[in-house]
């Protein structure tokens, strides 16, 4: 089972000729992903890591049957690339690109919703279903196949927690890094909904951080819709008020948005909340 990416994923990498595209197309394939095509306008006919490169997503879809895209295209061309993927019939678009203007994100997400396309990101590490497929830049070595679904706003913190889970001989069904930007294609609730329906997933880990209100909204959703056990960690419990920690999602807003508010909401929904990331595996036992 797993969610969003699996053995049936046929991936096209947009921006495959850049450093990241080159490195990660190989890493994704080593993980087991079917990487069927790359796109770079003007570079049709070339091969990267022996993956055929096309001028357009449409060509890639027509020739290879790609159904999922991973976008590495830098911010100025990112909206164009993501919308091209949707236009060409791609079902899942994973946007790794950071610093995407927020209005571009709003437009991409709106179009994707109207077409029933799943967008993950922007500014996210991607998604991995161990033993099946990975789309994005998550380090392969941390994963272990299992039945824990992980959803996280963060990048490296996700790696930390997944690694801690794997070191304790527990594994993951799917790990989704939804990204920490203010506007994301997929939010906690979208992923919780899928994990609840996924037969492989038995327990869920939610990794949030201060800022915004999506953890509070997730708590409300869990209370009413999720029967599987959920463990959470919220980063920034000791962060000083009013300091932004680097990216758009991480800011303390008034009232809701603080670590206390999120932890309170999650605990009220029956979620076990870890004090530090390394406590997550204990709470999963």
């Amino acid at each position, binding site marked *: 089972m797993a969610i969003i990416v699996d053995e049936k994923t046929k991936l096209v990498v947009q921006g495959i000729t850049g450093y990241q595209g080159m*490195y990660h197309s190989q890493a994704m394939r080593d993980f087991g992903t079917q990487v069927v095509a790359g796109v770079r306008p003007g570079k049709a006919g070339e091969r990267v890591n022996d993956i055929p490169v096309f001028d357009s997503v449409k060509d890639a879809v027509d020739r290879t049957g790609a159904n999922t895209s991973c976008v590495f295209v830098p911010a*100025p061309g990112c909206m164009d690339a993501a919308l091209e993927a949707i236009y060409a019939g791609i079902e899942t678009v994973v946007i790794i690109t*950071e610093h995407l*203007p*927020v*209005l*571009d994100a*709003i*437009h991409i*997400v*709106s*179009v994707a*919703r*109207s077409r029933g396309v799943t967008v993950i990101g922007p500014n996210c*590490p991607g998604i991995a279903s161990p033993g099946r497929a990975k789309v994005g*830049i998550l*380090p392969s*070595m941390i994963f272990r196949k299992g039945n824990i679904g992980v959803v*996280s706003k*963060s*990048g*490296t*913190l996700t*790696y*930390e927690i997944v*690694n*801690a889970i794997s070191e304790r001989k527990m594994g993951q069904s799917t790990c989704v890094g939804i990204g920490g930007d*203010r*506007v*994301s294609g997929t939010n906690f609730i979208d992923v919780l909904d899928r994990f609840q329906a996924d037969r492989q997933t038995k327990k869920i880990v939610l*990794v949030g*951080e201060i*800022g*915004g*209100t*999506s953890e509070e*909204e997730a708590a409300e959703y869990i209370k009413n819709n999720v029967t599987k056990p959920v463990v959470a*960690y919220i*980063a*920034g419990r*000791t*962060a000083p008020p*009013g*300091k*932004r*920690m*680097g*990216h758009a*999602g*991480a*800011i303390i*807003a*008034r*009232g*809701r*948005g603080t670590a206390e508010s999120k932890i309170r909401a999650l605990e009220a929904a029956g979620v076990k909340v870890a*004090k*530090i*990331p*390394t406590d997550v595996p204990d709470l999963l036992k």
Partner: protein
Amino acid sequence: MIGGRVDKAFDIASEMRNAPYGKSVRRECLNSPVWGYQDKSGHMKLFEYKAKEVMKRHGIPVPDGFVVSKPDEIKSLPGPVMVKAQVLIGGRGKAGGIKPADNIPEAKKAASAILGLNIRGYITKQVLLERRLDVVKEIYLSITIDRSRRSLIFMASAAGGMDIESVPENQILMLPVDPAIGYQPFVGRYVSGFLKLPPDQAEQVADVCAKLHELVVAEDAELAEINPLVITKDGKVVAGDAKITIDSDALFRHKDFESLPEDLTPLEQKAKALDIAFVQLDGNIGVIANGAGLTMATLDSINMYGGKAGVFLDLGGTDDPEKVKSAMLLMSEANPRVILLNIFGGITKCDTVAKGVLEAIEAKRMRIPIVARIKGVNEEAGRAMLKSAGMIPAYGLSEAAELASKESLKVV
């Protein structure tokens, strides 16, 4: 109420406003004319006069006015004026930053009183002189980003002139702009309908809504706020104040905004140039980590063991050894009691990262105790290198946090 919960409005509005500028008094700025400042998190906030210029360009009525940085620059007035401090902080009026003037001598007097005024830590460098309005009614109107709905959202209230956060919930309209539908004239009609205005004013307010939306899209603004939107005695609708924040991620298509200066210390400037987030706190452990979430988790973990971070550097989600090295060099200048390096490697091998760290230590002849935890491929080799150079290697996050905290609490 159309829309939803008011606490969302608080969040959205305060998030935009509370983005920190730092505690210190603003430093002298060399660039002139100054339009605004970019804060530490990259928000580009325009001064009122610049925001009004932008609004005027998009057809929103603003009072006639001009900006000066010396009283002598006042040569003529458009009539009775208000003299207004140009600072990026609220509460100007209460702090004596807004004064009326009826003629040139009065205006000069008011300007000299306000220029140089310290308003909640912000030194006034410029004043805006603009035609005084005969205010009959004050409206709150803004448009910003709604994270949950993933759209733009209008906020409006008939209780304008005060902070939106202190207006009761049932008096605020929150009206999302469905991105699939886009802005349509009905949106403006909903806003002016909520405000219960007579037809002529309703039409003007609806028109301001259309232009405000157009402005936000054209300029990539994250926030455009008019508070108050004034209805004058003769029934005109005019922007009494103006706040605009530009999305710094969109600067690649707005070259005209790019010259905004930033209010940063020299160390912060260096960090910024290297694309490293640098935050000063009040403890004595210097934390270097990669990624905002991991950095915060490292701070949480230190706290668990009784330590306190004094400064942290967030490299972003990268394990680029050059960047790690630069961060070490920067950190040595911040001179913490202990350094805690926590790098979760995705791409780079640990020994490569460790090599950069060693180079930095040698270059600076650093004597500060360093607890290092580098996770990833070739972990053992990396750890051995760090250990042989006298560092304290750690396996996991908790262990690293514990070791660094202990070290920081040692009595010299």
